[in-house]
């Protein structure tokens, strides 16, 4: 078993001597994500840095809480992720697992966390099932989900006149979920779906599928895929004159690092939904600068920001509960409002859904950008209540109807 565990001890030995609290609580947090593949740039080491920054900003040591952070690479494989999660919980004394991009791995870790009665704060995964039919009293889904992405990008495109859709869907669970959630929004808003093509995952050449989408005459081509698939399809759509021909591309899951990889010349005009952008206000800019210094100049993605925010709220809950008992901490996390410089004020709902506003962004033209990482302009704000699935429609057994 190739278990790469990078131990990162954040022990402020000197400060720990502070006699403020009689009781010491030690916490071990595991950041489990992709450190070598497709999603390594948008989560990876950056998420570990974000978690560490949360510990610093909370001044955990002064408050008598000792935090150790460990990390590992789940390689986007559910079996690898499950093994690491079990080892962490059973042998290494890990109290909570953070991040976990890739829905299939997240669903597995969600299940194990529930069995072991620990805590999982998910930032990286997309599937809305984490707070839907797979919801758990031990999981908080922090940053975004497929429902919010569909509401944001899907809803906005239909309102802007894009009332007929054709989907390019990555042929696995995540792609299907994203297509399903978006198609529902499109139809609800009076649009129609004229067709869809299931593309093998991962793919390199999308020109054939793009030509099929072009032939469908749909006004919007919805890209229900992620990472390299999205990058390749956007790049090739530009090449085949799809956007120039009047059809619009809807990138249903596009991260800041994807735009960085595409370059503005190719990505300009793309509309996308995110819950965090570093250049939103003074607080996010200041935080992003600190983050970039530690991360080789790369600005944070919403996933990394979500790890910070989730870790911070967890620590506040531990402080309030004066214990790291999972049930007590989860109760505090849901009871206390969330508040941090990155996502502002929010709350954690009974089904584990973290509630905050989502933003609709448009990618800038090269001329509008002041330099690397200056990529988005804000189109609109989607209030939390609209962005996420209402409790009334929830499939989560924790929600009492």
């Amino acid at each position, binding site marked *: 078993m190739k278990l790469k565990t990078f131990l990162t001890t954040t022990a402020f030995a000197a400060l720990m001597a502070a006699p403020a609290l009689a009781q010491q609580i030690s916490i071990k947090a595991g950041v489990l994500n992709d450190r070598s593949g497709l999603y390594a740039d948008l989560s990876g080491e950056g998420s570990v840095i974000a978690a560490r920054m949360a510990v610093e900003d909370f001044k955990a040591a002064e408050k008598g809480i000792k935090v150790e952070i460990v990390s590992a690479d789940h390689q986007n494989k559910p079996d690898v992720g499950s093994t690491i999660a079990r080892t962490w919980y059973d042998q290494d004394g890990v109290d909570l697992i953070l991040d976990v991009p890739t829905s299939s791995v997240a669903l597995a870790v969600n299940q194990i966390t529930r069995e072991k009665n620990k805590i999982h704060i998910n930032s990286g995964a997309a599937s809305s099932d984490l707070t839907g039919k797979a919801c758990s009293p031990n999981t908080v889904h922090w940053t975004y989900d497929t429902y919010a992405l569909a509401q944001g990008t899907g809803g906005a495109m239909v309102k802007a006149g894009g009332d007929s859709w054709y989907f390019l869907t990555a042929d696995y669970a995540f792609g299907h979920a994203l297509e399903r959630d978006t198609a529902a929004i499109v139809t609800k808003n009076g649009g129609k779906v004229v067709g869809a093509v299931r593309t093998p995952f991962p*793919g*390199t050449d999308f020109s054939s599928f793009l030509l099929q989408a072009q032939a469908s005459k749909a006004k919007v081509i919805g890209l229900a895929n992620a990472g390299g698939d999205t990058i390749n399809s956007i790049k090739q759509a530009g090449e*085949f004159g799809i956007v120039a021909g009047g059809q619009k591309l809807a990138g249903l899951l596009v991260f800041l690092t994807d735009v960085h*990889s595409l370059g503005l*010349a*190719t990505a300009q005009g793309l509309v996308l939904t995110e819950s965090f952008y570093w250049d939103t206000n003074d607080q996010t800019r200041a935080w992003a600068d600190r983050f970039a210094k530690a991360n080789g100049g790369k600005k944070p993605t919403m996933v990394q920001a979500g790890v910070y925010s989730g870790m911070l709220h967890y620590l506040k809950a531990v402080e309030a509960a004066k214990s790291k008992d999972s049930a007590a901490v989860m109760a505090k996390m849901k009871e206390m409002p969330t508040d941090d410089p990155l996502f502002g004020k929010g709350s954690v709902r009974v089904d584990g859904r973290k509630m905050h506003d989502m933003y609709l962004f448009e990618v800038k033209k090269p001329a509008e950008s002041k330099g690397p990482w200056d990529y988005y302009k804000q189109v609109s704000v989607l209030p939390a209540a609209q962005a996420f699935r209402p409790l009334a429609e929830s499939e989560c057994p924790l929600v009492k109807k």
Partner: protein
Amino acid sequence: MFELLGVPPQALFGQVLLGLINGSFYAILSLGLAVIFGLLNIINFTHGAQYMMGAFVAWMCLNYLGINYWVALLLAPLVVGATGIAIERLLLKRIAHVDHLYGLLLTFGLALIIQGLFRNEFGSSGLPYQIPAELRGGVNLGFMFLPWYRGWVVVASLVVCLATWFLIEKTRLGAYLRAATENPTLTQAFGINVPLLVTLTYGFGVALAGFAGVLAAPIYSVNPNMGADLIIVVFAVVVIGGMGSILGAIVTGFSLGLVEGLTKVFYPEASATVIFIIMVLVLLVRPAGLFGRAA
């Protein structure tokens, strides 16, 4: 007019053309593999990583040195080929006399190391590379919009493939090469420097991968895993064509691109597997591949 299984002919022509375009990448890459296997008897698992290096060298040329696409198209294969020569002289040469498997393991390990190094330096999500200004836009063929760049890819790879075939099958140098493949000891006895020939051949095969990488940079995502995603298919192409067969690699490369393109219209879900299904069928009927000679 007629319709074929519900697909209008216009759409079909478009897909046939796209299939040929993708086939050109398969052809160049499998050609390099076939040349290397033919002479060195090494299954070069580093090929995908070398293709990736080609794309990255093109990117570095542009961003660090301001060298444009056309120069990079010549320069990158030379640079990547030179690294190939170094690998051959330093490593592959030492295991030439032992079983195939060692070469396979060595090149596979090298591929992982190279990919890891690039990932460490450039991250995993890739780098932007624009289509050269001269080849932007395209032409409307009536049945489809053909980007100039795609047209260029087909032409460039056809020329390179045919030139390679000509070099190996019709020239004196090619004759030495084939002789050395057949019986290295005897060829050496005639005064031909076989070790040099081996080194240059490996360098050339690798340079072909680098060339394909530059061709791919403007249209595919330039990331450290780009070769790993493609190389499995290319191996299947080589096996179907017949290990070590030059013409086999070229013809199979283009025709499998075509088959894959058509599958994308009729049953897209199977387009990633269709090549492997063909591989199984071919191996059942002709174990040495379509153009291969039985050992």
